[in-house]
Every structure is written in C-alpha cells, then in structure tokens.
C-alpha cells in the first residue's frame, strides 16, 4: 500500500470515527449520569436519519441538520419524562426493557411515517465534490465529517468543564449518590442529559444521510456500534468515547483497505472483547466508585403450592394438546416449548446467577447451526445432530464464560453482546458452511420425528425435562452456591465457595440448555438463518424473562409463551405488531413490575 493510499484510508477511518463519536458520546453521557443503558439510542439515530431525509428537500440540507438535532432533543426529553423518570428506582433490567420497548415503538413509527423502503439522502450542497488524494478521491463531505467530530468533542468538553450544568453532569457521573445528597435537583439534570444525548444521536443520524440511506434496520446496528465505542472507551467517559471511536473507525477502514471486508462486521466486537479482557473498565474508564450489591428479592426461587398447581395443569394441557390441536397450533406450541427452555436457561444466568447477558442468543444459534450443519452436510441422524447441539453450545459458552466470569454488570452484558455479534458475523459470512445470510434450509428430521405431532411430543419432553432439571438445580447445593456468589461474593469466598468457578459453570450450563433449545428450534422450523443468533433474539429472551418475572422460576416460561403467542397473533392480525408489543411491554413494566408471574406467585417480602 502506498503512502497516499494509507493516508486516504486514514481519512476514511477518521470520517467514520466522527460519526461513531456523535452516536456514542450521547449514550455515554446518558449512562454516566443516569446509569440507564439506553437501548433506544440507536433508534434516536435512526429517527435522526429519517427526519433529516424528510426535511432536507423542504428546508435545505444544512438547515435540516440543527433542526433534526433539536427535534430529537425533544424526543429524548419526552422519553425521559414519560417513561424513564417513573422507573428511576426500578431495577436496571426493567429500565433496559423499557428502553427496548421504545426501540419497537420507534421502529414502527418510522415504518408508519416513511414506509418500508430505504430512503436515500441528498448530496450535500456545496460539498458534493472530492479531493484528489494520490490515486484516490476523498469526498469533500467526508472532510467536513472529519472536522465535525472533533469540533463536537471540543464543544462538549468545554460545556462539561466551563458551565454549571457541565459541572453537575461530571459530579453525577463520578458519584451520583453524593451529588443527590448535596441537594442537586436530579430530575432536571436527567431530563437535560437525555435531551443532549438524543440531540447528539439525531445529529449523528442526520449527518450520516449523504453516506448511507435511512433504513429501518439501522437502529440495532447503530446501538451495537454505540455500545462498542462506549464500552471500549469506558462508560461515562467522553474522551474515552472519542478515543474508542477513533480506534474502531480506523480499524474498520483498514480492514476494508487490506481486503478484509469479511472482518468488518465483526472486527469492532473483536476490538471490544480484547479491550475488556485486558482493561475491564475500558480504555479511559475507571472502576465504579462503589460496588453495587446485586441482591434480589427472589423468595428463594422455590415454587409455592399455587405455582406448582399451575405448572402441573399447564404441563397436562401441553401433553394432551396433540389430541385436539391443529397442525398450525402444534407448530406454535413447539416453538413455545423450545423458547420456554431458552428463557429458562437465560433466567438461570439472570436470576440465581445475577449475570446479565445481552448475547444469550449466541448459544441458541450455535446449537441450531451445529444441529443443522451436522444433519445437512455430515448426514448425521437427527437424534445425533440434536445431541451435538448442546455440546457445541456448551463448548462455546465455556470459552466465553472464561472471558466473562470476572466482569460485572454492564461490562458483562456488553462483552456477552460482543461475543454474540462475533458469532453472528461468522454465521452471516461463512457461506460455505452456514449458508451465509440465507442460512440453511431443508433441515427436516426423517423417520419418527418427521411428523409434526411426534416432533412436538419429543420437543416437549426434552424442553420440559430440561426446564425441570434447571428448576431442580436452582434449589440444589450448586444453585445455592450460585445465589450465594451473587448475594455476597466476599462472604461466599469465606465459606469456601469458588465464586468464579461457580459462575463459570452456571454460564456454561446456561449455554448448554440454550443450545438444546436452538437444536430443537432448527428442526422444528426446517431452516436456520443468522437471525437465530442476532441481538433481536437475545433481547427477545430478556423480554421473556422480564415479562414473566425474573423473581419466579415459573416466570420465564410463562413470559416465553406470552411473547411468542403475542408475536404470532399480532404479526398475523396487526400491521404494526412491533409497536403493539412495545406498548404492551411498556404498560407491563410501568404497571406490573413484578412480571406476569407476580400475579399468581407470592409477593416478595
């Protein structure tokens, strides 16, 4: 590569880094002050893109940029006032779920307003040319982006250092409790931070439109990028976000330059995984001021009489279902049984384990692909391929668990997300093995399991048996040791428990059961695609667990049934089913924070 080619790629990387910084700095600011992981940040970016594409022909491209940012500031402030303010003292997970409901609402709002087609943005007036750099050309607009990112960084730094508002933001980021104790009015600080963060995301989206079209899928892609930058830089650190955006932007640009396009989808997550393993608090982040205890009023995860009765009745009905149910309902019930196991395996991590995973779908997907590949390409019998699914996921989860077990809370969630995205990009790009973006089709088991009813019975037996085993294990000595490790790591160690090993085993076991669910899923659908392990499925799992209630063993399977049934019914009957689910989730979070299972189970003491 010649010197001028290197320079050109460097400039490309810089332009990409500027966009990443605009996107990520707002997320970091919001997290730093409010400790809310705003899943909807990518949606704000997406709305920014659409709004700018809409406004540019009407008021002109350049005026559209500040107007979009301002509009998004109002959207962010409104989201804080209407939803998140009410959840200020709720567990982190519920806040997360609420922001995910906002993702669904924003997605369908964009669909309703602007339709499903991608929308191309205009060329920027006055900057539509390009500079000659050696043998290549560098667009003038990208040069503008290269300047915009650092300018925003400087402006933001000045605001944070020189204004009273900035001082309060920095104080709250350092130590929120102390700032509150000093009498700072947190309510308006939070609203303000949300407004500024959303404006930055909106500006990021608006300035991206000459480079890429506005599309509906941008929200989750953007949030994944933003998470990576924020985590690599250190949560809450604006200089960290700037540095991380530079690193990620340049690494991506040089991947393309070196002909490693295939790496681009996954490389930022590889960067993140490396950084987190070496520096668990990010490049410029610092360990949290005080450890947050992860205790949970879980009432011991024992099923009481009413819950046992309910579970038994449900099991009996499910066993008898093949006698009366239509083929269509059989397929749906199979899916419910399989996803109930997926939710139960995630709950083992979240509830008794106290470990939040944003990437649990990876193990579901690895199991599904293992079963599919062995059946289709290696000609294994269905039962053997099915047995290999949990084994493959177990192995993958052991490796991931070894990296993850020393991290806590948000960083753990982010590293699991990163690893899942790496798995996803492999599945998406390894055409010869995984079928790439199309996935694998024709995964029908032969022989006894070919019949829909028979497959349902087999899936129900395996998934039900596995769920019962998980429940049993939660009440076993190992399950107690796991809860003890969550409740008080220091005390657990001093009664002789190896906390890391215990959490590692639990992580691997959760992967194993997710893999079994994935294998069963692949054969029930007859196909498998990268969607089975993308971030949407991971979030679906979280929604199931939280919808059902994280404090009860019964909750996750109930939540799985409810969400799967809702998705199936709404997807058929309602044009904007995502928004309907989002609204349902939001209503449940605000009105029924114990989850649906809280209705039948005991109240926490």
């Amino acid at each position, binding site marked *: 590569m010649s010197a001028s080619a290197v320079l050109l790629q460097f400039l490309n990387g810089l332009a990409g880094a500027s966009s990443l910084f605009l996107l990520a700095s707002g997320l970091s600011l919001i997290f730093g002050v409010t400790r809310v992981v705003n899943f909807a940040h990518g949606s704000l970016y997406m709305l920014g893109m659409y709004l700018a594409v809409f406004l540019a022909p009407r008021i002109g491209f350049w005026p559209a940029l500040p107007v979009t940012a301002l509009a998004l500031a109002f959207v962010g402030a409104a989201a804080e006032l209407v939803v998140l303010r009410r959840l200020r003292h709720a567990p982190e997970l519920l806040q997360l779920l609420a922001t995910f409901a906002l993702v669904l609402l924003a997605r369908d709002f964009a669909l309703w307003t602007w339709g499903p087609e991608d929308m191309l943005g205009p060329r920027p007036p006055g900057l539509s040319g390009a500079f000659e750099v050696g043998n290549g050309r560098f667009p003038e607009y990208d040069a503008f982006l290269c300047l915009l990112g650092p300018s925003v960084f400087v402006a933001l730094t000045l605001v944070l250092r020189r204004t009273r508002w900035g001082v309060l933001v920095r104080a709250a980021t350092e130590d929120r409790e102390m700032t509150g104790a000093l009498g700072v009015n947190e309510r308006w600080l939070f609203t303000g931070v949300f407004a500024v963060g959303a404006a930055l995301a909106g500006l990021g989206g608006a300035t991206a439109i000459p480079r890429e079209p506005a599309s509906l899928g941008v929200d989750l892609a953007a949030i994944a990028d933003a998470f990576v930058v924020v985590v690599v830089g250190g949560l809450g650190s604006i200089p960290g976000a700037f540095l991380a955006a530079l690193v990620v932007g340049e690494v991506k640009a040089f991947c393309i330059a070196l002909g490693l396009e295939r790496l681009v989808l996954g490389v930022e997550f590889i960067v993140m995984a490396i950084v987190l393993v070496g520096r668990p608090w990010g490049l410029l982040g610092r360990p949290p001021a005080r450890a947050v*205890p992860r*205790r*949970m*009023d*879980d009432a*011991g995860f*024992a099923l009481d009489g009413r819950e046992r009765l309910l579970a038994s009745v449900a099991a009996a009905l499910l066993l008898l279902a093949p006698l009366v149910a239509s083929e269509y309902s059989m397929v749906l019930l199979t899916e419910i049984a399989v996803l109930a196991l997926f939710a139960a395996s995630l709950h083992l991590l979240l509830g008794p384990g106290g470990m939040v995973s944003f990437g649990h779908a990876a193990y579901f997907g690895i199991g599904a692909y293992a079963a599919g590949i062995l059946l289709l390409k290696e000609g294994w019998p269905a039962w053997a391929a099915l047995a290999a699914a949990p084994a493959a996921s177990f192995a993958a989860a052991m490796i991931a668990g070894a990296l993850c077990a020393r991290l806590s809370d948000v960083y753990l969630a982010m590293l699991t997300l990163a690893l899942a995205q790496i798995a996803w990009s492999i599945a998406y790009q390894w055409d010869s093995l995984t079928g790439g973006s199309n996935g694998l089709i024709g995964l029908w088991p032969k022989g006894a399991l070919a019949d829909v009813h028979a497959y349902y019975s087999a899936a129900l037996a395996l998934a039900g048996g596995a769920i019962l*085993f998980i429940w*049993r*294990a939660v*009440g*076993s*000595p*190992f*399950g*107690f*040791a796991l*809860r*003890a490790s*969550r*409740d*008080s790591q*220091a*005390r*657990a*160690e*001093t*009664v*002789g*428990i*190896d*906390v890391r090993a*215990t959490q590692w085993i639990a992580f691997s076991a959760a992967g194993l059961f997710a893999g079994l669910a994935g294998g069963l899923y692949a054969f029930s659908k007859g196909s498998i695609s990268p969607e089975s392990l993308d971030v949407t499925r991971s979030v679906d799992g979280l929604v199931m667990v939280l919808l059902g209630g994280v404090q009860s063993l019964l909750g996750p399977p109930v939540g799985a049934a409810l969400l799967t049934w809702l998705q199936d019914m709404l997807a058929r009957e309602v044009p904007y089913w995502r928004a309907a689910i989002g609204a349902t989730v939001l209503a449940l979070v605000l009105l029924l924070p114990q989850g649906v299972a809280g209705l039948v189970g005991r109240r926490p*003491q």
Partner: protein
Amino acid sequence: MKLEVRELRKSYGAFAALRGVSFEVRSGERVAMIGPNGAGKSTCFNVVNGQLRPDAGTVRLDDIDVSGRAPRHLARLGIGRTFQTAETFASMSVRENVQLALLSHRGRCGSLVANARCAFVAEAQALLERVGLAAQADRASASLAYADLKRLELALALAGEPKLLLMDEPTAGMAPQERSELMRLVVELAERDSTAVLFTEHDMDVVFGFATRVLVLHAGALIASGTPEAVRADPRVREVYLGSA
C-alpha cells in the same frame, strides 16, 4: 493450632503500611489488634485473611505457609472470618444461610440434583441455637436486626469449625449493650472448642474486657504485645495513644 506471622511487609507506593510485623496466636487465645488510625491494622488483618498479598514475610498456619492464599483456601484450612459490616446471603432465609455454609464447608456444593433445603437441617438448627437465632430460622435474613445479622455471620463462620476465627471490628455499628452480648457469645463459643480468635477493634471496653492478649500497632510496626493489664501500663502505648505530654 498455631498462627505464626513473620516479618510481614507491605507498601502502597512510597507509604510503608507494614514494616516487619511478627506475632503468634495459639488455640484458646483471644487476641485483639489495636492501634491508632493508619497504624496498619487493616493491612495486617487483610494479609492474614488472604485479601492482600504481602510484599515480604510469611503467614503460617500449623506450619503450612498460607501467605497470599485466596480466602476460600483459608476457609478450607480452618480459618473463619466475619466482616466489619456483616456479610450474609440476603436472598436466603436464616436457616438456608447456615445450610449453604455447611454444604460448602463439607464439599457438597457440586451436587445439581440434591435438595439444598433438606441438607443438614438438624446441624443448621443446632448452630443457630448456639448463636441464639433458633427462633428466627425461617425468617428472611434480609429482615434481621443488625445485631442478629452479626450473630448469623458468626454462625456462618462457625459452620466451618474453624481453628482460628478472624473478626474485623466485630462490634462496629452496634449499641453498647449489644456489643457486650455479642462478645460474651464469642467468648463462650470460642472457649467450648478452644478456637483462637484474632480481632481488630476500636472500642476499648471490648478490647480490654474480652481479649486475653493485646497487640498494639503503630506506624506499621508492633510496639507492644501482652496481657490487657500489661499493655495498659506500657509507656510506649500511652505515648502513642495519649501523646507524649
């Protein structure tokens, strides 16, 4: 049982927190470690309990070198401990706390299918009786009064049948009446099994009322060691605590 601490040294940057501290603790002794703020008590204590690794020096338990070993290894070798702010398992009932401690100490936490709630019920009850919590066995531990939480923590430490019990500020955060009750309980329990106790403490009534021997640290070095009476009369101790005037 003999705990033998030899020439412990530990620095934080340029600040030497421990400058060669040596002492011994034997079965049946109750040893209080005292000293003004910054004297090195916490550092010394945390080296002994495995939370900190010394720069130099050794900690031996019955001639086994345990310096720098993880707390869970020390637990298996017979060192129990309590924390300055009581640490228990908040999501569990009082009985379950003790059941878990018994399961762990007896190496039974590998089981995935046994029912933990049925394990060691009688022994857990007996332990709770010894610390006076039998009547509260079914309560959620998170709902206990602080003094009772301290008793529960003691039961957790005793579940491992320790030869040595380390107590970091055992009576911090308690009312005077509760302090002496807790310490009387500690004495009673320790004497029954001739368990050695090593504790740090700010409250001098507790120190002089319940210790059989007192160690005084000052500026990272041991300046006195002896019976409470001898230490009380030691001129250097008086100088450190009262000033040279």
